[in-house]
């Protein structure tokens, strides 16, 4: 039995803006185990991004419980959230979010600046190798194509050996060929044992995952295993 990484019970999230309370998540519950590849799907405004932010320790829930590796992380302060983000989570964003005028090497190294561990160089090179960008290691971020940038982002997400990788619409800014290449990398990482949570509003993208959680209007509408899973490798062959 694999480790239960995430356990969420009746999680609710309200935003308060000038005394106006907007309720975004109305009570969701689920578990995610180590090694899973989960897609959180839903239309705009469904609350899927909010859920990702909470699961990714970027924000706190308003009501309910959130356990991470058995520990109650429902209400942590800013410094604790930052530490967990640094150690346990890797993010891949739709807009890549690389540091401008900075080399691939230093971009991937960024999370390591905020921890106390050593061996930075080994970790950076290993992560860059995992995404196949050794030949671009000294190039600057603005010299890369969209697909390459996203690969750098994945390497950055990997560098601290996180427990979970969050990918928020990772192919949203890419053409279908580059997008497919990215999905192939994510699939490969999952095959190696990484836990991946993918957030998307596109069914085609979501079907690369093994499990889909559908969020509609702040509640879980469906939570099922994917039968007709898409594999990026097949996609590549189709395109040839």
């Amino acid at each position: 039995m694999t480790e239960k990484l995430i356990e969420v019970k009746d999680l609710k999230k309200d935003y308060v803006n000038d005394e106006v309370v907007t309720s975004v998540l109305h009570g969701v519950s689920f578990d995610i185990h180590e090694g899973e590849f989960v897609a959180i799907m839903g239309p705009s405004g469904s609350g899927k991004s909010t859920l990702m932010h909470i699961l990714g320790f970027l924000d706190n829930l308003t009501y309910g419980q959130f356990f991470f590796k058995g520990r109650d992380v429902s209400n942590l302060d800013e410094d604790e959230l930052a530490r967990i983000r640094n150690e346990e989570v890797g993010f891949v964003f739709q807009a890549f979010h690389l540091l401008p005028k900075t080399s691939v090497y230093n971009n991937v190294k960024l999370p390591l600046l905020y921890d106390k561990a050593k061996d930075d160089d080994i970790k950076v090179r290993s992560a860059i190798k995992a995404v196949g960008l050794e030949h671009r290691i000294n190039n600057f971020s603005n010299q890369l194509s969209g697909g390459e940038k996203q690969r750098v982002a994945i390497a950055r997400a990997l560098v601290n050996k996180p427990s979970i990788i969050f990918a928020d619409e990772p192919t949203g800014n890419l053409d279908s060929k580059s997008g497919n290449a990215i999905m192939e990398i994510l699939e490969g990482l999952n095959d190696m044992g990484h836990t991946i949570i993918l957030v998307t509003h596109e069914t085609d993208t979501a079907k690369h995952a093994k499990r889909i959680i559908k969020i509609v209007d702040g509640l879980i509408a469906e939570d099922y295993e994917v039968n007709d899973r898409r594999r990026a490798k097949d996609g590549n062959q189709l395109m040839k």
Partner: protein
Amino acid sequence: MTSLGIIIGIAAVIVIISAGAGAQSLIVNQFNAIGTNLIGILPGSSDEDGPPASAFGIILQTLKYEDAQAIAQSVPHVTAVSSYNTGMATASYQSAKTDATYYGVMPEYLDVEDTGVDKGRFFDNDEDRGSVKVAVLGWQVARDLFEGQEPVGKKVKIGKEFFEVIGVMRQRGVSGFQNNDEIILIPAQTAQKIMLGVRHVGFIRAKVDKKENLPQAVDDIRLLLRDRHNLLESKVDDFNIRNTADAIKTLTSITDVLKFFLAAIAGISLLVGGVGVMNIMLASVNERVREIGLRKAVGAKPNDIMVQFLAESITVTLTGGVVGIIIGSLISALVAIVARYLGYDWDLVVSPLSIFMGFGVAFVVGLIFGIYPARRAAKLNSIEALRWE
């Protein structure tokens, strides 16, 4: 603009400390050159702490030649006294001319001023009493008029009168803020009766044997003069007595005021510079919102962000500080060179302290004016920051 403010501010700090120290060492040196056992008596009353009225060019007539003689005779611990009358005239010999200040003094001038003649001799009491037209030339005056010829024994025209040169002073340089090589010395009575047509003296200097006896001597002189001037108990002194320690204090307080103004300039410049740095940093934070969001997302704590931006603002001010220190040091050096060229004994003081202070001030300015932008950056919400267009 920002850097300019920081640079000017730091340069001003350096100049203040350096030039201030230089000026004050100059003052002390000037007075040490005169001798610290001197008492000056000036006509006209004034506050003890303020400059004497005669400093403002007002001519007062309450001191007499006989007062100086009386002080020499009656006041214990006084070893030498001279009266001083000052005038300006053109001195000429054959075709050479020079404008000079002449002093009518008593023979004890040499003891009072602790100096001597290089050639010839000084005048004596008989020549003084007889208002004889003899002159002792300052070293530079002798060179200007005689250019290598022997001055002693020649007749020099001072103003409208002819004087016989009986001696040339040693080279003395500047002391008491007077260039002593560019003066001519004539007997006191000659100055009063023949050159100026006055019955009073400009001021009197008395030398005291030991510093410890200065206060007593001052009191004795005051009593003596009050008596001679027939001042009743209720009346204020019609003279004022200064010793060099007082003079140092007065001039030092003037330079302190100058330092204060320089400090004000420095303060304002640094304020302007600091505000500029703050604005630059705020703009930088605004431009880098997404970067800040990203750093937080990968694990930067609010403190990490704050330290990052504070370091950047301090770097900006330290860079300006280095330039300011260099400029300030150059200015101080220039001031010292010019002052020395003019004959003043100015010590160049660019101390490690002033450089340290320059860096310290730059650092603090960067810290203070960088805190607000750094805190703004640290408090950004990473989710919103990442969405920033």
